[in-house]
């Protein structure tokens, strides 16, 4: 059989070998492999969610459907177990506070670094990038040691955890906002200033509204990152009241727990997902559509 380029599309392949080797056919092996990967990636989590509705105590044998671990079990369900509720509220509290503190700091940093010319700005840029490249273990250890030995008035606990979360979140905000900042460019501000606005007014009335989708997206990203954070929370925890949901999962997973752990994890997952969906919806509304969807533009944000 000749393999002239372009010959395959119109002539149907006849033998199985030719079907497999057809260079212009659809890549069936790659497709299968990719879908298998997606299944491998997502299905374990779906099974864990499924078992949160298990009627029995097992996390590996299905015993029927029930909301027991969410509401009805009198001691162990999420609704009735104070340890689980405390962990959830600690996680959410930290995430909300981090979101509210890190985003303004990050937006200011992004705008300042983008417009500031000079040596110090390059150093500032480098400083901003460092938390992104540092392994969390190193950052966690550093913060732990500094709280214990230097900033001793901040005791280990919720405040320390908050400071830690904000520290690593700022850089994410900067990256997200900066992408939008460069896409927007300086022209609108310059036009505003030509029309008589002061630089401050141009910033407030022109730039910040245009940055709104990125600011909102970074609020949601910081929320989701903070809710799932484990290492920093764990290193800076001070006692039972500063336990977050990831810490709870870590300490209970290998012991003989019951599906209430799955239930807590599922609830946190729903919260993260809600935040992300909200971020995407608001991004679309604030950015007014555009050429590509929010998902695709997020996929290109990193590096």
């Amino acid at each position: 059989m000749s393999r002239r380029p372009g010959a395959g599309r119109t002539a149907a392949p006849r033998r199985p070998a030719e079907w497999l080797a057809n260079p212009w056919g659809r890549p069936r092996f790659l497709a299968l492999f990719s879908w298998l990967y997606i299944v491998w990636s997502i299905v374990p989590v779906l099974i864990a969610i499924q078992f949160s509705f298990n009627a029995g105590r097992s996390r590996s044998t299905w015993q029927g459907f029930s909301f027991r671990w969410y509401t009805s079990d009198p001691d162990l369900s999420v609704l009735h177990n104070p340890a689980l509720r405390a962990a959830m509220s600690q996680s959410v509290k930290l995430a909300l506070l981090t979101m509210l503190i890190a985003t303004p700091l990050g937006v200011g940093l992004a705008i300042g670094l983008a417009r500031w010319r000079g040596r110090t700005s390059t150093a500032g840029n480098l400083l901003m990038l460092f938390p992104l490249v540092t392994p969390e273990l190193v950052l966690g250890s550093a913060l732990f040691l500094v709280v214990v030995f230097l900033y001793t008035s901040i005791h280990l606990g919720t405040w320390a955890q908050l400071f830690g979360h904000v520290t690593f979140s700022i850089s994410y905000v900067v990256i997200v906002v900066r992408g939008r900042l460069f896409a927007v460019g300086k022209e609108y501000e310059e036009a505003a200033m030509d029309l008589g606005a002061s630089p401050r007014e141009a910033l407030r009335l022109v730039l910040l509204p245009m940055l709104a989708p990125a600011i909102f997206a970074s609020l949601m990203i910081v929320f989701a990152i903070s809710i799932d954070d484990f290492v920093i929370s764990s290193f800076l925890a001070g006692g039972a009241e500063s336990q977050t949901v990831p810490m709870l999962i870590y300490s209970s997973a290998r012991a003989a727990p019951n599906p209430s752990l799955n239930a807590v994890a599922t609830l946190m997952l729903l919260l993260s997902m809600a935040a992300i969906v909200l971020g995407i919806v608001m991004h679309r509304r604030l950015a007014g559509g555009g050429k590509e969807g929010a998902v695709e533009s997020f996929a290109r944000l990193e590096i």
Partner: protein
Amino acid sequence: MWPAFAAPGLIWLVLLFLVPFYAILSVAMGTLDPIFGAAVPEWNPLKWDASSFAEVMNSTTLQVFGRTCAYVAIAGTLSLLIGYPVAYFISRHGGRFRTMLLVLLIAPFWISYLMRMLAWVNLLQDDGYVNRALMFLQILDRPKSWLAGESLTVVLGLVYGYIPFLILPLYAALDRIDRRLLEAARDLGANPLKTFLRVTLPLSRQGMLAGSVIILLPMFGDYYTPDLLSGSPGNTMTGNQIAFYLQAPSGANRGAALVIFLSAAVSVLMIYYLITVARAAREAR
């Protein structure tokens, strides 16, 4: 005016990022209080004492570090081997499903790492689905305890945990390759395999390196994956040792020294990553 905007963020980072790093150095180069046995940091660089490094660099530490390097190398290679075809498929042949595939690809980012590991702890139980499936397929005739000190479990756990962070940058890099280059290669007579080997692969090298570094750095500091997937001290990684040392007040010097050692070991990766991100940011400007 602009410096004033950047100032709060920069001050925060200096106080809560740079100073803590100095604290690590000070504690590592510090001493032990003779009465309580607790670590005492030495803030004055002139009086730094490096004996903690000698204490912590014993054969166990080096053995654990060697094991860590092996785990990370294997997990990283596996991640690349699995992740590259997936990224390639989605970027080149995604078609109508592209957005949905991307959503499914990005989903693990928003699912807590620990929840994903919890899912596997459930599946790998003696009566979990993995054992049941393997026995059903008659690969095993007795349930195997996957969670009791199996290196395979830890390595696969690392792969599962970190591979999404590799695939996304790789996808972004592959997506950026100009389609016209591929068409030109085809026009010049290359079949798809040759086009891939001589055009796509070299152009994606930057993305592969970047994606690999993104996952290698956290993998070196991972301590929760071996803790969750293996109860045995025979699978510990350097991160476990650091966490162990830092739990006790007397171990802070050695813990800090080990942190510095680990940072030095991965500093090449960190500097490479830093340069790439800085360069990408400058190009976008």
